[in-house]
């Protein structure tokens, strides 16, 4: 890497399980203002967002969201129809060019206004999968079954993941505060309702800066020492669902070994176990999802970026030196992004 780039500010909404009557832009504006205030920046060299038109039910919904940023005089801007963690990746690549030194990244989603499960069906192969009407939770449950049978893990182990995530989430002012897991009923077996990330409305924003600009604007920048994303074939029938090879490679490329804190974008209990194994975090020394993770708040298109923001915050507040943020996309952990952050400044 030829340029040092750091996360210098992070803000997120107090996420909500219900539609609070705010339009996307009304959710977004306060946190854009917050990162501007934190950094003192009024404009950015580059702006990139992550959102999904199907969530809003309207085309080009990211364009109207630009009003929250302010696009006059005209700004350099881009967008990904993915979690904003991938927008952060694009901004990081853009900063590597060397001609700008700040970038704004944000993501937002209101899952409360449609049926998220069937909305996510629209991302599936339109020939063999989408016409079946299979939804995101049913697909995840296929992976859960395969993983449980391969690993010998039990449904009680899944419940323990949910219990720990919810407990941590209750200490996080931005997460939903969900009760202890209970009940024997399945959602889609082997997953119970608490194994499935909650419907959440919310948004998040991150500011990246390079080199001395980062040092100038942030007391303890969270330097990106490695970032990588990998994808697997789309069809769930051609890959080994019991492992995440894409997360393993991304972790290896990004340098996941030796982190103290890992924020994993696990939207189902079993995904956390698969990811821990893939990233070599199953030894027990690494604090996994101290924020409560996506099982405590899962604003679509922002929840992956929030993992990176939470990981960066542990460095900003001085409680950790080396942390990891992870994001996933697609059915059954098809795509995985790993971002490793460090408080050690070699500049």
């Amino acid at each position, binding site marked *: 890497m030829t340029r040092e780039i750091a996360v210098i500010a992070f803000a997120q909404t107090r996420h909500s399980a219900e539609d609070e009557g705010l339009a996307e832009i009304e959710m977004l504006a306060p946190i854009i203002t917050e990162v501007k205030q934190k950094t003192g920046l009024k404009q950015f060299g580059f702006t990139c967002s992550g959102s999904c038109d199907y969530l809003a039910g309207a085309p080009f919904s990211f364009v109207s969201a630009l009003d929250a940023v302010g696009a006059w005089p005209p700004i350099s801007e881009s967008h990904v129809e993915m979690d904003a963690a991938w927008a952060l990746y694009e901004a990081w690549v853009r900063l590597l060019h060397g001609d700008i030194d700040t970038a704004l990244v944000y993501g937002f989603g209101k899952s409360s206004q449609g049926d998220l499960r069937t909305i996510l069906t629209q991302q599936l192969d339109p020939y063999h999968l989408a016409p*079946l009407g299979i939804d995101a939770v049913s697909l995840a449950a296929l*992976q859960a079954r395969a993983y449980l049978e391969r690993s010998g893990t039990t449904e009680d182990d899944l419940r323990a993941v949910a219990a720990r995530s919810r407990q941590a989430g209750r200490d996080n002012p931005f997460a939903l505060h969900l009760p202890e897991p209970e009940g024997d009923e*399945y959602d889609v077996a082997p997953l119970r309702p608490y194994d499935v990330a909650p419907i959440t409305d919310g948004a998040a924003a991150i500011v990246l800066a390079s080199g001395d600009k980062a040092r100038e604007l942030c007391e303890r920048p969270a330097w990106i020492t490695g970032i990588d994303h990998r994808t697997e074939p789309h069809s769930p029938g051609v890959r080994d*669902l019991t492992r995440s090879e894409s997360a393993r490679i991304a972790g290896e490329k990004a340098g996941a070994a030796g982190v103290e804190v890992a924020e994993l974008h696990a939207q189902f209990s079993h995904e956390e176990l698969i990811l821990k194994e893939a990233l070599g975090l199953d030894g027990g020394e690494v604090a996994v999802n101290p924020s409560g993770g996506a099982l405590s708040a899962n604003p679509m298109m922002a929840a992956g970026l929030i993992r990176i923001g939470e990981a960066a915050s542990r460095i900003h507040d001085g409680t950790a030196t080396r942390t990891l943020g992870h994001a996933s996309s697609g059915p059954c952990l098809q795509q995985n992004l790993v971002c490793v952050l460090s408080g050690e400044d070699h500049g």
Partner: protein
Amino acid sequence: MPSSTGRSEPNHVLEFPGGYTRSVGPVVGRFLSELRDGRLVGVRTAEGRVLVPPSEHDPDTGEDVTGEFVEVGPAGTVTTWSWVPRPAKGHPLDRPFAWALVRPDGADTALLHALDVGVFEEGAKPPRFLKTGMRVRPRWRAERNGGIGDIECFQPEVTMVNAPTRLEYSLKGGKALQRFLEGISQGKILGHRCPVCEQVIVPMKGLCPRDGVPTTEEVELPDTGTVTTFAVNNIPDPRAPEVPFVSAYVLLDGAGLTMLTLVAGIPADQVRMGMRVKAAWRPREEWEPSMGNIKWFEPLDEPDVPFDEIKDYT
């Protein structure tokens, strides 16, 4: 992602009227055409693997696949599954069903489809026989139009048949039994005392099974007794109040032979040898000459009989 049941009517709908038209290309097109003809095909990769459903490129290498299509299955093996206890609006079945990845025989990859394993009530837990490794086959639609839905769903291979079994008889139980049931129809339990061994035989047969002599001396017995041995039954029976239920041998007070009956009014796992019980009769107006007049025996609030006193009857 809780489901949206209970959502009010939408005030905004996103829809392509008439559906969204897509071209399928030569590989997917061949697969769908074969489906319409009731066949399942895969395509061979340069490395010799057979992909089902076929794709234009090998997912491992990104190379073009060969032009060789291979008929596979239609039988296959479940590689993983999930269970939908409460189907949603867009699901292919309106009662509980499974999703499964099915690797058709002769293929190296798996096809996703619904798996119908029978009729279950909404909210049902997955049936125990539903397992990875299960052998399944497609259920073809009669009207096919070249889509993945030409297979309605998969269903398990046939592993059992159910043969009707019913024979009809007109039985008479003999004079002694008729007299016994006459007593029962009046709420009395009758037995015979053996003139040789003096044991009371109930229900009487008109003979002492021990001494082989005719018996005629009628004795009325109380409807209380002691459980000498019992079994816990897990298969439903119309006579039993619930499953599991307990069938037991009860030694009526004063009898020299035990009687087979049901024991109820107590959880199955609390029934004991030596437990004191009393007959639970149906209401008098329902009495007829049938052992059905006694529904079952229920616990009496009396100390258990020591094993030594019943050991000859177990």
